[in-house]
C-alpha cells in the first residue's frame, strides 16, 4: 500500500519531467528530496520512542518510505536502482515483522507451561552468582527460539545490518549516494547527498537501538516460561517471507541487474514514450465503456 505512491512517482515523474525537457526537468526535485529526508528523520525519531513492536514496525515503514522518496528524489539511475532493490527487501521484511508481532506478543499469555527448569538443586559443579545462588542459564522452548531467530532476521533486515538483503539494499543506496556526494557536481545536490548519507546511517542506528530494546524486552525480560502455541500456517507464512529475503541475498546479483536495467529504462523515458505512441490505438469496445 505505502509503496503505491512510490510506484506512481517512479512511473510518472521520470516520464513527465524527464532530464531532457529543459525548464520542467526534474520538476519538484527538492520537494521529493527534502520531503524524503524529513520523512526519514521523522520515522527514525519515532522508532526511538517506543518498545512496542507494532509501533516499531509502523515507524520502520515510514523510514523506508522516506528512504525511497529521498533516493528517487536524487534523480539518478543508480540511486533508483538501489531504491528498487530496497523496496523488495523492505517490503518483505516489514510484512514478516507485522506477522511476527502478534505471535511474539502471544508469548507468556497463551500456550502451555514448560516444566520449570530453574529449581534443579545446585550441584557440586554449578557456578554461583554474586548472591551465591546457582547461576544457570534458562533454556528457550523451541517455539520461542524459532520466534527469536525470525525476529532477529527481521531486525537485521529492517535495520539494514549484514548479512541479509537489507544490508545489500542499504549499501547499494549508500554507495550510489556517495558517488554523487563525493563526485564533482552541483553543490546543492552534493549537500543533499551528504545529508542522505548521514541520515541513512543514523536511521539504521535508530532501528538497531529500537529493535534491540524491544527484542530484549520481549525475549529476555518477560521471564516467560510459557511457550506460545503456534499454528503451522502462521509459522510458514513468516518463514517464507524471511526465506525469500535470504534468497534475495544469495541471488542479489541477478536482481540487481534487473533493477538497474529498470532504473535505466525509467531514466530514459524516450523508449517508453515511443513504444506507447508508435502502437496504433486499438478500437474501443462498441458499447459504452462505463464499467469502473
Amino acid at each position, binding site marked *: 500500500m505505502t509503496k503505491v505512491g512510490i510506484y506512481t512517482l517512479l512511473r510518472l515523474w521520470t516520464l513527465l519531467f524527464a532530464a531532457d525537457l529543459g525548464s520542467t526537468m526534474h520538476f519538484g526535485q527538492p520537494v521529493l528530496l527534502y520531503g524524503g529526508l524529513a520523512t526519514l528523520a521523522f520515522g527514525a525519531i519515532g522508532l526511538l520512542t517506543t518498545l512496542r513492536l507494532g509501533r516499531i514496525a509502523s515507524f520502520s515503514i515510514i523510514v523506508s518510505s522516506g528512504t525511497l522518496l529521498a533516493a528517487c528524489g536524487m534523480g539518478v539511475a543508480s540511486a533508483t536502482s538501489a531504491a528498487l532493490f530496497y523496496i523488495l527487501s523492505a517490503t518483505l521484511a516489514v510484512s514478516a515483522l507485522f506477522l511476527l508481532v502478534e505471535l511474539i506478543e502471544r508469548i507468556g499469555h497463551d500456550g502451555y507451561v514448560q516444566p520449570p527448569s530453574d529449581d534443579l538443586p545446585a550441584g557440586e559443579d554449578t557456578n554461583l552468582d554474586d548472591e551465591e545462588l546457582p547461576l544457570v542459564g534458562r533454556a528457550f522452548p523451541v517455539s520461542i527460539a524459532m520466534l527469536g531467530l525470525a525476529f532477529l532476521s527481521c531486525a537485521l533486515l529492517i535495520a539494514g545490518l549484514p548479512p541479509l538483503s537489507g544490508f545489500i539494499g542499504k549499501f547499494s543506496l549508500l554507495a550510489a549516494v556517495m558517488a554523487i556526494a*563525493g563526485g564533482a557536481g552541483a553543490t546543492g545536490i552534493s549537500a543533499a547527498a551528504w545529508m542522505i548519507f548521514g541520515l541513512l546511517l543514523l536511521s539504521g542506528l535508530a532501528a538497531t537501538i529500537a529493535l534491540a530494546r524491544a527484542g530484549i524486552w520481549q525475549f529476555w525480560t518477560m521471564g516467560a516460561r510459557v511457550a506460545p502455541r503456534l499454528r503451522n500456517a502462521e509459522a510458514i507464512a513468516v518463514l517464507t517471507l524471511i526465506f525469500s529475503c535470504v534468497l534475495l541475498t544469495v541471488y542479489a546479483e541477478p536482481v540487481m541487474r534487473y533493477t538497474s536495467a529498470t532504473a535505466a529504462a525509467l531514466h530514459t523515458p524516450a523508449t517508453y514514450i515511443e513504444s506507447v505512441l508508435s502502437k496504433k490505438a486499438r478500437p474501443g469496445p462498441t458499447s459504452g465503456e462505463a464499467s469502473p
Partner: protein
Amino acid sequence: MLADLFTCNGPSERLESTAMPLVVMLLLPFLGSVVTALLPTRARTALASCAGLVSVVAAGGAISLFPRIRDGGVIRETIAWVPSLGLDLSFRIDGFAWMFAVLVTVIGALVSLYARYYMSPEDPVARFYAFFLAFMGAMLGVVMSGNLIQLVVFWELTSLVSFLLIGYWHHRLDAQRGARMAWIVTGTGGLALLGGVIILGQIVGSYQLDAVLAAGARVRAHPLYSVGLVLILIGALTKSAQFPFHFWLPRAMAAPTPISAYLHSATMVKAGVFLLARLWPVLSGTEQWFWLVSGAGMTTLLLGAYIAMFQNDLKRVLAYSTISHLGLITLLFGLNSQLAAVAGVFHIMNHATFKASLFMAAGVVDHETGTRDIRRLNGLMRSMPRTGTLALVASGAMAGVPLLNGFLSKEMFFAETVFFTAHPSVELGLPVLATIAAIFAVVYSLRFGYDIFFGPPSTDLPRQPEEAPRWMRTPIALLVLSCLIVGVAPTRSIGPSLAAAARPVVGGTLPQYSLAVWHGFNLPFVMSLVAISAGFAGYLWLRRHQEQGRLQDPPLLAALNGRRLFEGALVRLTLWSRTGLRSLGARRLQTQMFTIVAIALLLALLASHDIPLEWGERERLPASPAFVFLWVIGATCAVGAAMMAKFHRVVAITLMGATGLVTCVTFVWFSAPDLALTQIVVEVVTTTLFLLGLRWLPMRIEQTSARVSSRDKARRVRDLLLAICGGGGSTRGWCQRILRRVRLLPRCSP
C-alpha cells in the same frame, strides 16, 4: 567426525591444492554452529567435542598455510556475489591475517575444552556452543576478508553474536544491560565503519583490499581523507573499547567466563586493532592519524590501568587491564613508526595468550570458590597450587616481568617512546606516561596474582576451594607455557611468525628489530626496572590503605562513569524523541487533515502560481434555471452534511448521498453517461461502507452547551477558510490544466 565429514563434502576434493580452501575454513565454524544447535541442549561433552573438533580442524588448516605466506605470499580466493556493486566474497590471507586466524582458532579450541568444565551441568550449553562457533566464524571472516565491505559484514556479525553471547544468562539484569550496551556501542561503530569504508572505496575506486593497500598515497592526499578516517576510527575504537568508548567492555563481563576469555583476548576487541593494523599502510603517516590514534591509545592506556588498580572483582580487574593493553597497542599503531607497528603486532599475540590464560584462571577460581571478590579470596595457593602457579606466571607476563612474553613487547614499546622524535613536550611526555602506565600494570597484576593466592587462607568462602579438574587446567597450562617459551627464546619460537605477520602491516619491508631478551643496560630496561620496583611499592602502599577501608574507588573519576553517562544518554534520547514526535505529529484526525490539506494546497500553489488562467476556446452552453436549481440543492446538501456530521451521522450520510446524486445528474446533463455510471457505483459503495462502519465509530459527543468558546469559533473559521481555499484551489488548478490542455493538444483521434 562431523567436521571431517564437512571437509570431505566441501569443495576441497575438487581443488587440487593440498591445503584446506579458505571458504571451507570459514564455513566450518558456521556449519558446526548449526550442528551444535541441533544437538541435545545439555549434552556438554558431545557439544564440547564438536566445537573443539571444528576449531582444531580449522586451526590445522590455518597453520598448514604458513609455508605459503611466510615470505610475504598472499593467498586469495574469490566467489562472485554482487559484482555490479563491487561486492564479492573475496578471501585473502597474508601473514597478518594468518596470525589472527591461528590465534582465533587455537584459542577457540582451548576455550571449547575449558568451557566443557566451566559451564554448569544444568546450563543449556547447546546455545552457548552454537553462538560460540558462529562467533569464531564471524571473526575468521573479519580477518580473512579481501574486500572491505565484506569485512564490515563480518564485523557486524561479530557484534551481533557477541551480543547474544554476553546475554547468555539473559534472565540477569546485568547480562541484559551489558549485552545491550556492547551491541549499541559496537553496532554504532560498525555503521560508522560502513560509512568510512564506502568513502574509502569512493576515493580508491574499489573495495578490494589489494587495491586499497596499493593506493595509500592517493588516499592520504584526498580531500575526503579526514572524514573517512574519522568514521573508520570510530569503528575501530568502539570495537577495541578505546576511550571514550571503553565503558562497554567491563559491562560485558556479565558473559560466562569462557566467553570473556575468548572475546577479550584474541577476538572481539582485537578486531579493532586488527583494522588499525590492516589499514596502517593506507591511513597512517599523517598528523590526524597520530593525534587521533595515539591520543585515544595513550588516554586509554593510562585510564584503564588506573581504574584496574581499584577493582575488587577478578574479572573487572582483567577487563580494565584489557582496555589498558588495547590502549597500548593502539598507541603503538598511532606513533607512525614502522618499529612501533611491529611492536604492536607482537603485543597483539602476547596479550592474546596471557589474557586468555588469566581469564580462564579467574574462571577456575570463581568456579571452585563461588566468588570473584578479591577482598574475600586469600591464600588459595594451598588449596589450588597448580592453578595458582599458572595464574602467577600469567600475571607476571601481564606486568612485564623479564623472561616472559609481555616483557619483550613492553621493552619494544619503551624503546619506541624513548626514541620518538616530535615536539619536545611529546618527546618527554611519552616515556614518562609509559612508565606510569607500566607501574599501574604492575600494581594490578600483583593484586590479581599475589592477593588471592598468598596470605592466610580465607575461611568464609561459599565453597570449599579445591584444585580444578585436570582438563580444565590444561588450556591454561598450554597458554602459560607458550608465554614462557616466547619469553625465554623469542627468536627461535615466535621470530618467523612475527616477521611474517608484521611484514604486510608495515607495507612489505620489515624494519631492523631485535627480539633478544637482553639488550644491555639501556634506558628501556631502566624504565622496566623502575616500573617493577615502583609497582611493588605502590601495591604495598595501596594495600595498606585499602585494608584501612580507604581508596576503595578510583579517586578523581567519580564523575566519569561511562555506564551512567551511556544509560543517561539513552534515556534522554528516548525522551527527546518522544517530545520531538509529539511536536511533529498529531494524534487527532482533525489536525492531521488540516495539515495535509494545507500542505497540499501550498505545494500546488507553489507549483502553479505562474501558469496563466484561461477560459479555453470552446463555445459555452447557456445557463438553464433547472440546472442552477439542481446545484443549489446539491450545495445545500453538502453544507448540511458537513453540519450534521458531528451530531446526526445517518442524516449526514443521507445528505452526502444526495450531493453525490446531484453530481451524477450533472454528468448526465453534460452528456458524459460513462462518468455518471461510475459515479453512481462509487456513491453506492461509499454509502454502504459508511453505514457498515457507523457502529465502529467512537461514541457520539452530545452537544452539552450551546455556547461555543471563541477559540473554537476561530478554529472553525480557520477550517472553513481552508476548505474554501482548498475547493477554490482545486477548481483553479483544474481550469489551468484542463482548459489549457484542451486548447494546446492537437486532435489525436484518427
